[in-house]
């Protein structure tokens, strides 16, 4: 009975994935066969940047969630493993023809081969043979990217996973920082190109299909990251629903009980850590393809915190939460909230007045809400006093701004976007600790009501 139910669930999931993948192909090719598509659907639109980056980040976020959310191990090394993946991919796929140009500071590369070129040597560099060589080369480089990351995870995990799990966060954070320094070391230049970027390797747009005249006939540059991410996330979901996944969750819930049931703690922690890092490595390779370059500088702890933020907002322990939060986050940071970083002036006196009014209303509304919350709690007097602070701040600023007569929209300048994000993090952590989805999955929302109650 239970078997049948889960089979039905996976069929539905498969259909959903296929529909999404089909939708992506359609979306990015609409502009091919329709003349007057709206600006958003043109290939240069921000929409496709968001979709590509979203696919890459969602894989990394899900890989982090596997470890942090499902196994209960707190690691902060995601950027480090992405770096390993990005560099492995880049080093192995820079075409022979570009090596001297890319590595010109070091008199060429020490890696005397390129995976796509190796296949091209057998299958031919032109037409279908060339395309297949590229795909095979990219695929193998991506898998190797994951394996290199997993190998390093295994090395770190051996000593660290035996300790209490707090140490893992410190060790992985340190590891990522050290790695970033090592990869910029000039002595390794012939391999890593020192502090300079590696580029010219196959990117997402290399997958767009062109006819003999060099015109693009089918765009696949958004589809490819979606396909890879969907495949990897599907593997992770299968893993989580397998008996291994159950063992991971058992370790998260109660290590002693898990051990008493015969689950080998260090072996399973190691396994989860390596698998998580494998997919972070693959995500790193995708990230290199997305950015069209690989440079150690970019893989700093800010990247890890971005991913961590996504995981927390989505719900620690929810795969679909991570995916939804990724796309929402990426859309906000790359697209919808961009205006926060651009200084703007009000077009007219009336819009300025409306803004001033809105700010005042917002200040009073927030204060009223906080007052209401505080009233119900014990010892609420102090909290009620504290709740008046936003009113004073908002309205005070509002009056100051109204008096100043300035026409620039307040706050909007470079860096304000990050301020807004930080505020969002604080709100999530303070009031919505379970994130968007908690530990539920999107499929749980469609379960019959009684069962949903019971599943809680």
């Amino acid at each position: 009975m239970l078997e049948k139910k889960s089979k039905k669930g996976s069929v539905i999931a498969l259909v959903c994935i296929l529909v999404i993948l089909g939708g992506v192909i359609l979306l990015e090719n609409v502009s091919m066969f329709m003349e007057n598509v709206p600006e958003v659907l043109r290939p240069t639109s921000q929409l496709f940047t968001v979709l590509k980056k979203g696919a890459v980040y969602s894989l990394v976020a899900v890989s982090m969630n596997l470890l942090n959310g499902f196994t209960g191990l707190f690691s902060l090394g995601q950027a480090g493993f992405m770096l390993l993946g990005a560099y492995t991919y880049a080093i192995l796929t820079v075409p022979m023809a570009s090596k001297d140009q890319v590595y010109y500071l070091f008199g060429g590369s020490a890696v005397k081969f390129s995976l796509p070129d190796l296949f091209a040597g057998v299958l031919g560099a032109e037409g279908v043979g060339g395309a297949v060589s590229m795909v095979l080369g990219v695929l193998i480089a991506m898998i190797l990217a994951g394996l290199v990351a997993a190998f390093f995870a295994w090395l770190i995990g051996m000593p660290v996973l035996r300790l209490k799990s707090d140490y893992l966060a410190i060790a992985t954070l340190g590891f990522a920082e050290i790695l970033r320094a090592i990869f910029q070391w000039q002595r390794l230049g012939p391999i890593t190109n020192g502090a300079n970027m590696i580029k010219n390797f196959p990117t997402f747009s290399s997958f767009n299909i062109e006819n003999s005249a060099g015109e693009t006939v089918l765009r696949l540059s958004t589809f490819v990251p979606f396909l890879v991410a969907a495949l990897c996330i599907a593997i992770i979901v299968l893993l989580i629903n397998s008996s291994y996944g159950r063992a991971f969750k058992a370790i998260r819930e109660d290590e002693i009980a898990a051990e008493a049931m015969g689950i080998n703690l260090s072996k399973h922690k190691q396994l989860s850590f390596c698998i998580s890092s494998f997919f972070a490595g693959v995500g790193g390779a995708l990230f290199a393809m997305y950015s069209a370059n690989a440079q150690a500088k970019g893989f700093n702890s800010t990247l890890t915190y971005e991913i961590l933020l996504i995981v927390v907002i989505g719900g620690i322990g929810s795969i679909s939460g991570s995916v939804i939060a990724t796309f929402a986050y990426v859309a906000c940071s790359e697209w919808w909230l961009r205006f926060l970083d651009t200084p703007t002036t009000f077009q007219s006196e009336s819009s300025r007045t409306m803004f001033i009014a809105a700010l005042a209303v917002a200040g009073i509304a927030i204060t009223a809400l906080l007052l209401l919350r505080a009233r119900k709690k014990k010892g609420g007097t102090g909290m009620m006093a504290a709740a008046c602070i936003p009113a004073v701040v908002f309205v005070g600023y509002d009056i100051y701004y109204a008096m100043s007569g300035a026409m620039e929209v307040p706050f909007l300048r470079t860096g304000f976007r990050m301020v807004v994000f930080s505020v969002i993090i604080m709100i999530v952590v303070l009031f919505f600790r379970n994130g968007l989805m908690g530990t539920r999955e999107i499929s749980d929302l469609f379960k019959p009501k009684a069962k949903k109650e019971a599943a809680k």
Partner: protein
Amino acid sequence: MLKINDLKVNYGGIEAVKGISFEVPEKSIVTLIGANGAGKSTTLRAIAGLVRTSGGSVEFMGEDITGKDTTEIVSRGITLVPEGRRIFPDLTVLENLKIGAYLRKDSLESDLEWVYDLFPRLKERHWQAGGTLSGGEQQMLAVGRALMSRPKVLMMDEPSLGLAPIIVRGIFDIIREINRQGVTVLLIEQNANMALQTADMGYVLETGRITMTGTGAQLLADEKVKAAYLGT
């Protein structure tokens, strides 16, 4: 079946178990009783491979299993129901049960049936998160989870802890039932009365040493046991 020989356990220099020997014959119920801190839990944890022994040996079905890891010991057929139940609170009842069978590769269906027969309540609630079960139900789940590993010896650490008398009686009925079906039981109890009534053999543990041995009935009748553990 299970033979403990001069078992010693140290916690950072403090000897919690100071060389105890006892035997658990096949298909019997054996109980260890003793005051708080006597070393009962430590003994079970040592047998299960959860703490390192500092001396002595554990023999199971004629083979020495001293110092083997828990995975090995569980797969050989000794499973511990830990003190305080320790079910997995955010996992469903069914998931909890499946984790009990983690080391087994064969089909679980028949064992799931078996556990559901013993605890119909768990079947009703198989979708519920473990942490939302009542204390008694959680104890059933802890026992059911351990049974899912198909143990030859089931070790239980204070299964009656914090349960109402009527639930305790239910738990002991189940223990007898499991035993009747061929599972050997090693039981630790504060509730010495119930434990001795149920057990074939009893051992009294005092500060890391066995001070008394006898059948359940013998110990129940013993004046010193009565005074110290039965409160009569």
